[in-house]
């Protein structure tokens, strides 16, 4: 495909040391008219300082209500190659692991049916195939699905769950993030592909409180691994850190949020009943400290971007849940949450917003959880609160 447009503005973004997305579009443009026109259309945006995309109509594949984001140019005559330019969300494998065989195959298919452009990955976690025409959707889906790939979520549905690398390569993972994510995804295929919720519902799973998948900020359900029992200390390794120049008091002891650690220059001690399992000491002294042995997860609900009532972080609803296959407890809890949300949630109201609107008690009772201090940062301040008839005399 010959070069179609001069792109003086975008060309400036090919300089500099960091790899350039413009170079990538140009690479795809060699083979794809759509990528070529994307270049022109994007240059136009850079010139006009505004987007040239329109709202997508509903496009998709047969039997699915999601997985494809429809997108149309508002200047299709100028850039016919991107007149339609829909993205396809392919559900990524847990932990973003791949082998080259599978990926090469997928890339070949995408060069055949699409723009040759991708996102590895979208910020929800999908492997995003970026830009194709409506008529290519069905054949492409047939090809990829026959090879073991499926679409991710979009619309008012369960969204593609994602997770940190977890037991795949991390010494701190308290739970099998990869398996949990796979299992949840399989369990709720219908909820993912056929949007029937009030709004989107996201799962993210991290193996520990370091939260490398940012679950607490971006998932209606955040599953975060943790432990009970004492942090295991290897005093020899503590000495090794001291010898290698770590100022243990400044870097570790004084930064422990609960001040439950002490170090006398020789031994490091932890008053475990006061540890909040924040992971700081363990992360900074990985050779010396390891999490306790009884493993499980904290379940937090509700995080999302700012609309409508302001950004939310997920909050604790189950302080400790065992996480063993087939993960019945989290699946059952999820079904209960969805039932309640389906019943009371307004259109475009996320779960967290509904809990806020209806009150935590209403939510906890509906899903069968008891109140616990771990659910709150602090008790209410103003002394107005409800009583149920059976609590009164």
């Amino acid at each position, binding site marked *: 495909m010959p070069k179609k447009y001069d792109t003086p503005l975008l060309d400036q973004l090919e300089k500099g040391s960091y790899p350039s997305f413009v170079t990538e*579009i140009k690479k795809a443009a060699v083979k794809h008219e759509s990528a070529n026109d994307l270049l022109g259309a*994007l240059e136009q945006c850079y010139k006009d*300082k505004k987007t040239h995309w329109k709202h997508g109509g509903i496009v998709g594949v047969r039997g699915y209500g999601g997985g494809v984001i429809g997108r149309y140019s508002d200047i299709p005559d100028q850039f016919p190659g991107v007149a339609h330019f829909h993205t396809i969300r392919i559900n990524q494998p847990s932990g973003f692991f791949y082998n080259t065989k599978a*990926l090469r195959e997928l890339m070949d298919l995408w060069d055949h049916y699409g723009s040759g452009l991708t996102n*590895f990955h979208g910020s929800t976690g999908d492997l995003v195939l970026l830009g194709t025409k409506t008529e290519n959707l069905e054949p492409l889906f047939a090809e990829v699905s026959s090879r073991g790939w*499926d679409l991710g979520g979009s619309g008012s549905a369960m969204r593609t769950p994602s997770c940190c690398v977890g037991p795949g390569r991390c010494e701190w993972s308290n739970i099998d993030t990869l398996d949990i994510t796979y299992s949840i995804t399989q369990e709720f295929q219908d909820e993912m592909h056929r949007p029937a919720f009030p709004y989107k519902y996201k799962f993210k799973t991290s193996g520990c409180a370091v939260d490398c998948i940012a679950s607490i900020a971006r998932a209606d359900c955040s599953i975060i691994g943790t432990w009970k029992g004492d942090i295991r200390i290897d005093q020899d390794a503590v000495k090794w850190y001291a010898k290698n120049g770590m100022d243990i008091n400044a870097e570790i002891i004084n930064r422990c949020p609960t001040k439950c650690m002490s170090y006398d220059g020789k031994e490091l001690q932890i008053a475990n009943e006061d540890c909040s399992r924040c992971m700081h000491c363990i992360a900074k002294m990985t050779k010396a400290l390891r999490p306790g042995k009884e493993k499980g997860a904290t379940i937090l609900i509700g995080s999302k*971007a*700012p609309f409508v009532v302001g950004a939310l972080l997920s909050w604790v609803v189950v302080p400790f849940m065992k996480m063993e296959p087939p993960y019945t407890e989290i699946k059952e809890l999820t079904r209960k949450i969805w039932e309640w949300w389906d019943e009371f949630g307004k259109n475009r109201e996320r779960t967290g917003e509904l809990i806020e609107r209806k009150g935590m008690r209403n939510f906890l009772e509906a899903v069968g959880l008891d109140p616990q201090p771990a659910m709150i940062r602090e008790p209410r301040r103003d002394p107005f609160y409800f009583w149920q008839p059976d609590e009164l005399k």
Partner: protein
Amino acid sequence: MSAPQRKTDIGPPHFKQFLPPVIQKNYASWKYHEVLRPGTMVHVAESGDKVWSVRMASPRLISTDFVRDVCDVADKYCDGFFRFTSRHNVEFLVSDESKVKPLEDDLKKRGMVMGGIGPRVSNIVHTQGWVHCHSAATDASGLVKVIMDEFIDYFTTKELPNKVRFAVACCTNMCGAVHCSDIALVGVHRKPPIPDHGRIPNMCEIPSTIASCPTGAISPDPAKKSLKINNDKCMYCGNCYSVCPALPISDPVNDGVAIVVGGKVTNLRTAPKFSKLVYPWLPNNPPKWPEVTNAVKGILEAYVKGAQKHERVGEWIDRIGWEKFFKLTKIPFTFQHIDDFTFARETFRTTAAFKW
């Protein structure tokens, strides 16, 4: 090609087939790791086995050829396995120590950039921008590119007090992780949408559009079977436009980029934090956004100078106080900084103790 048998609801491929043998063997039995270089670390298993991870930058918006190049490298040094990180970097997983150096050299030869491990800047979580989204008030990929170019040394070599997580979102839908990032850019509008009364009756559902407005600025206009916007109440968030395309809001002159800082996600030391506004608006000046990169530079430099070891941006600011932050960075303090949204009250200073 004749179309093969389509399948539905099969879900993603099982991850196990994508795990390199060393990982399958030592699954869930890792003991510790060491960061060897800014782009290379080694994880040691209980068994004594080791896996080296070499992390390489990616622009995230990549061509099929980029993926094929990565596959070539993975075939050569990693038995055909590799992964992406949650921040869109590529990680080559090497089980044979002797292949690490050659892999790194090979990547260098290909012009690839390695880094991002440890207390550094890593790749930027971001969104579609003008590349693909109708809602974008700015571009995402372009901003990411100029920021990463500016701070490349903090990716490839130099250390920071702690990790600094950037995010970019092209509109206040915030598809990135803007609301909890150390330093984040977000595209913003500054004028109310202009209702297209011709299209609203057909394209938009009136009640859900009204409900989409955080400030209650939208009301029905029954005469026109359309909507009215109370311009005094609108703070240009664009949420109504997400719901109703006939409420265009973009404006080349007044759209721009806001900067929020001090958020974090991890639970280490301090609880996860929201990012807070520091620049309410900087102009959209593609392709280089010099005002934005400059502003970010000022913030990052103040952080590098002022923060103690292990302090994230937000932890540093919490220690010194926001009044001191504005003093140090010389960022002008405006009415926009003072909250007037849901929790405004909780952000007012209800103490007589503050710094001059």
